[in-house]
């Protein structure tokens, strides 16, 4: 499971666990904040999410440069195949043909299955489904107009989803944030054996770009 800790990879993992066995999570830790492929805010926090879900995590460094990061991704998948005998890769891709086609090509070259259970999903329907299935998601980064600092660290609620629907109509933003408008972090969900509680975090924000950096967190019994 290609895993960033954001809502899309967590929900895709949930779908995969309903149908198949998930052997491990793979997180690419990018040194480039503007990576084309990999979600970056709080990506170093995926180890606690993996513990919460009871799954092993393969954390793999990448420089985050456009084509080299694909080689890093392939190397990480090869390592996962050696360590965990994986037969396929699952991603949380929704709309990005750029991401999906590249992962498909890597899987083809390695003779692995590729699954994208959120592919082309209706985004508003998907956001509502996240809440109805019991996921707790916070906004961990905003990177586009008109998002203000109030979004940073805010939990995704029905009201926030309605706001996103309004912003989609007014500004043509991608409501699930797959265009890079916003990033998320998952604190709890049906596949979590324990939930995550944030103890300390900081916000930085300037000109429609901001991050919610988690400094301290812990697992809590559910």
């Amino acid at each position, binding site marked *: 499971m290609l895993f960033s800790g954001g809502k899309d990879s967590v929900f895709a993992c949930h779908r995969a666990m309903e149908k198949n066995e998930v052997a491990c999570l793979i997180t690419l830790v990018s040194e480039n904040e503007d990576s084309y492929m990999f979600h970056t805010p709080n990506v170093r926090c995926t180890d606690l999410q993996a513990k919460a879900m009871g799954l092993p995590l393969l954390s793999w460094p990448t420089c985050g440069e456009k084509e080299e990061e694909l080689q890093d991704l392939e190397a990480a998948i090869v390592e996962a195949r050696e360590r965990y005998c994986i037969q396929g890769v699952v991603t949380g891709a929704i709309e990005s*043909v750029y991401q999906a086609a590249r992962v498909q090509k890597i899987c*083809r070259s390695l003779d692995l299955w590729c*699954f994208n259970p959120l592919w*082309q999903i209706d985004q508003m329907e998907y956001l509502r489904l996240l809440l109805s299935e019991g996921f707790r998601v916070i906004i961990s980064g905003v990177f586009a107009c008109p998002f203000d600092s109030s979004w940073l660290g805010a939990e995704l609620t029905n009201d926030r989803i309605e706001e996103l629907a309004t912003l989609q109509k007014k500004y043509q933003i991608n409501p699930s944030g797959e265009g890079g408008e916003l990033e998320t972090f998952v604190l709890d969900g049906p596949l979590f054996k324990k939930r995550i509680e944030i103890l300390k975090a900081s916000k930085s924000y300037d000109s429609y770009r901001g991050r919610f950096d988690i400094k301290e967190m812990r697992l809590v019994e559910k």
Partner: protein
Amino acid sequence: MILLVDLCYEKNSLSHYEFVHPIASHLNSSGFVCRITHFTDVTRDALDLYDKIILCGTALKDNYYAERLELFSWMKDCDKPVFGICAGMQIISAVFGGKIVPQPSIGLERIKIIRDSPLFGEPREIEGYHLHNFGVTLPEDFLLLAGNRGVVEAFWHGVRPIFGIIFHPEVRNRWILARFANL
């Protein structure tokens, strides 16, 4: 009502979210009623319930449907509009005497529509999403709608409303699904 035939390797597979749900979701939101049935459960009698039939695609490594082509013999005398997407097109080709041939392609490609048809309208170029290891040869009496004889992007039976396209209309070309549903 439109029948969506799930061609994935098993019923309710992880792949069906990717290859069947987006088509159902788009058609439902456009006001069409759909029902999904796995290809191993399609019977001639059950086809009477439907106005049109869409054969959906599969994952790149999933070619199980090609081992069970006998399950699609109903298509030979089916008088309803049939639309095959990727794996679905491969099945139509094989049922009507064409061949499924190795022809891998992944990603966005320019698609040259060369013939006017109820499915596409006028000839022009569009961009389509490829995700296949196999392509097809053009069955005898079928008309080439897009691509060329070496790389068949789309075909039409010509007499009966049976169409196939190798690219995925659920990605950036949902208008094609609506045009088929409105035939």
